[in-house]
């Protein structure tokens, strides 16, 4: 099915199941430990051997010599994979990193060997016996020191233009009555998902099967085929449950390659997980940014000039952290400039992490807006409302499909009690604590992409949905079941959803906040086909049919859905594809974040007291799951604002705090009352589902709202994240 004109009325509008805050259909499996994650499969007929990855001990250079003898002789060791015996390997098409070092080492903890043994403990212990002699090379590890070598971006997938302009930014900024010109920095960050990367690989002749934990199954097949130089059709991947990914499990990472190579070498299944201290430097992370923002406004607070430049670094071939993305669309203003520059760094690969580009970009832009509001003596909510736009400010002929930023700001401010904020910083105290409130807008793109599904009407009248879509804990199982139940007019309990198997039709996968809208639209398309098959079987006019309560009402007649499968189950498969609506409309999601913080008067410890997010993101398929996404994202915002930082040792070239004791993420005690307002919205330009993603929107702007609240509490403006007590002392 091709979606190329805005959706009219369709069966999802009934919202009998869709739009209801139903519990996760897989929830009981998870709470009772029966949902099987990658490392837990026990389906190999032969007991798997265990793999353990040894990471490089230097950041850049060469392996001069590797002495494997002691390790090979160690108890239980079956094989050691190194670049010398692995055969020729390529890279994937999404990540630029090579998975096996040798002789060159590209970054710290890049895999230099995979030890395979009878037990995990034997493999780990033998890995420590490998003696590697390196020749170190000087590298670039310091973003700030590398700015001189920054380059514009080469056109590539997932890469925005290096520069965008409208009007005459320089002149307008020069002439503006009130200006802000500041530099902001955001640090490298780690996804730090709960489930580490893990794979069980099993070969059967030249056919490879892997139980793994990746977000885009079909990218995984494509990339693993490319890396191992084998045909894609020989690979089957299963990733039915994922314990968090956040972009850090987009497609194939070293665990999949290592397990596959090891299993091939010993002709036996191999089970492998990356040990936590390896993940931070071995896999991907969100790159640090240095951002310069220049805003010019009239004394009334109308923006006349908006300039945003951002620098980030990556390994050769790695992408840019596109921190200027939101700035291109968030506020009106006739004169605009955004610019992205990329430096070559020899740290691990920077890549997608929840709201890539937009999260760090909004961390900077929304502090700048707060600074401007203060300079103008205008309420920061009012300043944002004043500069709202209903058309894409870079391309004013293109309207936003739906944009309710103003409603989010107004409803949020009202519910939060924003009017009680004292605009003068450092004036409100509660005992030893200084109190402050902050606000930030939120925006995140609403990409949608082709997605397929297979839907079966079983002989017992139940519905089976199969698609290679994944569920990272986001609620995919549930919203897909809701979609199928609504479309086929059955109860949620009558729908079984099977996800995350490359044998199933190719979906969007999970990433870039596109999963919910795309995958359910694919299911919609398949259900439309199945409805037609049902109509054909039972001989009614589909145009007049109402599927409800496991029956179909057509005029005065009623048919049993089950009856359509009396001669055998009915199977329908389709792909939802898209026309040009995403070019005719600017499709984005919007919101507003409000935060109250307390800062200790003496120690400058920061504690978030209250948070509120008002979000609009098209039709909300499941308000409970959507709220969970948003409060999780708000929690991420607390981490980003107050503690998360991969610290680069710029001498040794690696992230020093590479475990969860050193890389701090929020705990329960850090998270106060969180309120989420889902502002009503339906976007018919997206798909028949009229929905958009929300999981990344919830993050964009949170950290800036916290930063602004800290300023309001203390009068100290910190422009370098994370904002910690030492920066306020």
């Amino acid at each position, binding site marked *: 099915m091709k979606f190329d004109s805005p959706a009219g009325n369709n069966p999802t509008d009934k919202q009998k199941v869709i739009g209801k805050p139903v519990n996760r259909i897989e929830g009981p499996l998870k709470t009772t430990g029966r949902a099987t994650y990658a490392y837990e499969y026990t389906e190999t007929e032969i007991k798997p051997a265990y793999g353990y990855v040894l990471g490089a001990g230097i950041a850049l250079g060469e392996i001069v010599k590797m002495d494997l003898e002691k390790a090979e002789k160690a108890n239980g060791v079956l094989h050691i994979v190194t670049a010398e015996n692995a055969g020729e390997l390529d890279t994937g098409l999404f990540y630029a990193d090579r998975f096996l070092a040798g002789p060159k080492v590209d970054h710290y903890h890049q895999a230099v060997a995979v030890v395979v043994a009878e037990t995990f403990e034997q493999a780990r212990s033998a890995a420590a016996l490998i003696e590697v002699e390196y020749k170190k090379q000087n590298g670039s590890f310091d973003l700030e020191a590398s700015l001189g070598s920054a380059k514009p971006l080469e056109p590539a997938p997932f890469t925005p233009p290096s520069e965008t302009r409208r009007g005459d930014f320089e002149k307008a900024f020069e002439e503006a009555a009130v200006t802000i010109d500041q530099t902001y920095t955001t640090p490298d960050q780690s996804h730090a998902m709960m489930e580490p990367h893990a794979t069980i690989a099993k070969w059967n002749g030249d056919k490879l099967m892997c139980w793994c934990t990746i977000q885009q199954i079909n990218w995984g097949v494509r990339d693993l085929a490319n890396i191992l130089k084998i045909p894609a059709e020989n690979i089957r991947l299963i990733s039915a449950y994922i314990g968090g990914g956040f972009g850090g499990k987009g497609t194939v990472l070293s665990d999949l390659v290592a397990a596959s190579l090891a299993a091939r070498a010993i002709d036996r299944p191999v089970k492998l997980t990356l040990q936590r201290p390896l993940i931070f430097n071995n896999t991907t992370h969100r790159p640090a940014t240095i951002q310069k923002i220049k805003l010019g406004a009239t004394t009334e607070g109308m923006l006349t000039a908006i300039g945003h430049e951002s620098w980030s670094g990556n390994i050769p071939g790695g992408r840019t952290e596109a921190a200027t993305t939101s700035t291109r669309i968030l506020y009106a203003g006739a004169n605009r400039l955004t610019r992205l520059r990329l430096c070559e760094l020899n740290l691990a690969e920077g890549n997608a992490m929840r709201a890539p580009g937009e999260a760090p970009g909004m961390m900077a832009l929304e502090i700048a807006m707060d600074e401007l509001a203060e300079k103008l003596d205008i309420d920061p909510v009012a300043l944002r409302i004043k500069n709202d736009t209903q058309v894409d400010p870079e391309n004013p002929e293109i309207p936003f499909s739906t944009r309710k930023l103003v409603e989010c700001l107004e409803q949020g401010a009202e519910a939060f009690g924003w009017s009680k904020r004292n605009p003068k910083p450092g004036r409100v105290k509660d005992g030893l604590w200084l109190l402050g409130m902050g606000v930030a807008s939120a925006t995140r793109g609403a990409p949608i992409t082709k997605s397929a599904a297979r839907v079966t009407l079983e002989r017992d009248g139940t519905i089976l949905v199969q698609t290679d879509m994944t569920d990272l804990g986001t609620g995919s199982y549930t919203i897909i079941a809701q979609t199928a139940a609504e479309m086929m007019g059955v109860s949620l309990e009558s729908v079984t959803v099977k996800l995350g198997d490359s044998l199933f039709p190719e979906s969007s996968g999970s990433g870039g906040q596109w999963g919910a809208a795309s995958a359910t639209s694919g299911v919609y398309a398949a259900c439309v086909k199945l409805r037609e098959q049902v109509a054909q079987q039972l001989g009614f006019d589909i145009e007049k049919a109402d599927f409800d309560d496991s029956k179909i009402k057509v005029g005065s007649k009623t048919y049993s859905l089950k009856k359509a499968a009396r001669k055998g189950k009915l199977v329908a498969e389709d792909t939802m594809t898209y026309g040009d609506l995403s070019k005719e409309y600017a499709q984005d999601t919007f919101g507003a974040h409000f935060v109250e913080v307390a800062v200790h008067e003496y120690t400058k410890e920061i504690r978030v007291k209250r948070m509120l997010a008002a979000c609009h993101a098209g039709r909300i398929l499941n308000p409970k799951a959507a709220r969970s996404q948003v409060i999780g994202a708000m929690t991420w915002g607390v981490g980003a604002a107050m503690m998360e930082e991969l610290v680069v040792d710029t001498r040794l070239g690696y992230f*020093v705090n590479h475990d969860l004791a050193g890389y701090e993420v929020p705990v329960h005690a850090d998270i106060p009352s969180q309120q989420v307002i889902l502002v009503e919205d339906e976007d018919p330009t997206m798909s028949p589902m009229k929905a958009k993603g929300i999981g990344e929107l919830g993050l964009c702007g949170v950290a800036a709202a916290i930063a602004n609240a800290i300023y309001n509490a203390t009068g100290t403006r910190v422009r370098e994240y994370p904002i910690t007590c030492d920066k306020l*002392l």
Partner: protein
Amino acid sequence: MKEFTYEKVSTIEEAVSAASKNENARYLAGGTNLLDLMKLEIEKPAHIIDISRIGLDQITPTADGGLKIGALVSNTNLAADKRVRKDYGVLSRALLAGASGQLRNKATTGGNLLQRTRCPYFYDTNQACNKRNPGEGCAAIGGHTRSLGVIGTRTECLATYPSDMAVAMALLDARIETLKIDGTARSIDFKDFHQLPGETPQIETSLTPGELITSVLLPPPLEGKHYYHKVRDKASYAFALVSVAAVLQPDGSGKIAVGGIAAKPWRSEAAERLLPSGAGLVAAKLLEGASATEENKFKLKLVENTIASIITQNKA
């Protein structure tokens, strides 16, 4: 993790006897630190002596009105003990500021005293560390030092000792009772237990090889208001940037001990005498001879401010 042999003993005497027979043996109590370090091959014991069933899990009153805490009393039970909560509030608060509920259930009093540093370079066996490999050098110097020591450090080592419990025990002038492998018992002043790095940062305590901590003695309760303020970037489950234990009297006099800044809980009686004169003088005296890095010099100010906060609360 290196292969090791394992035995479970049932008495204190069996424990030290096992230690005397095995070079490079380690006692295993809660295991919350030792096992992690063994997985990373930072600790590589050849023999593990499991002491979890030898008793030592009681808190009993002493003749002089103090408490005797068995070395295997869990952090959870110690923090929750009624007598500790009533008479040694600073200790209960310090314990509850440390780790998480799950860890405190496993962690023991003796084990807590032997926690090793959380210096990130100590934790990465690719990097030089004089604690792990004496003489190898210290990668932390010139590197990421925000969480590291500011006083009593050396060019050999910047590590801090991460315990919260010990900061309170140092304040309370606790004593540590042990049994040596030759069967003799001794009692160690808390201030003499943890060692500054000197030229031998690998030596962290005054315990002799195989010597077993059997109990901690608390002197009679300290009158006054008890405080434990742990400053960190998050509200729970993080090591201290700086922590201050204090017991203050209505007249402003009292005692303080500081954590997060050195290889041992930091005290100075000369500084304590200045408490009635305000935090500035106390901190200046307490931190005499400090040598902070650009990244961690904020700790000096933070110590002063944390003390100031406690003094302010004591006046209120």
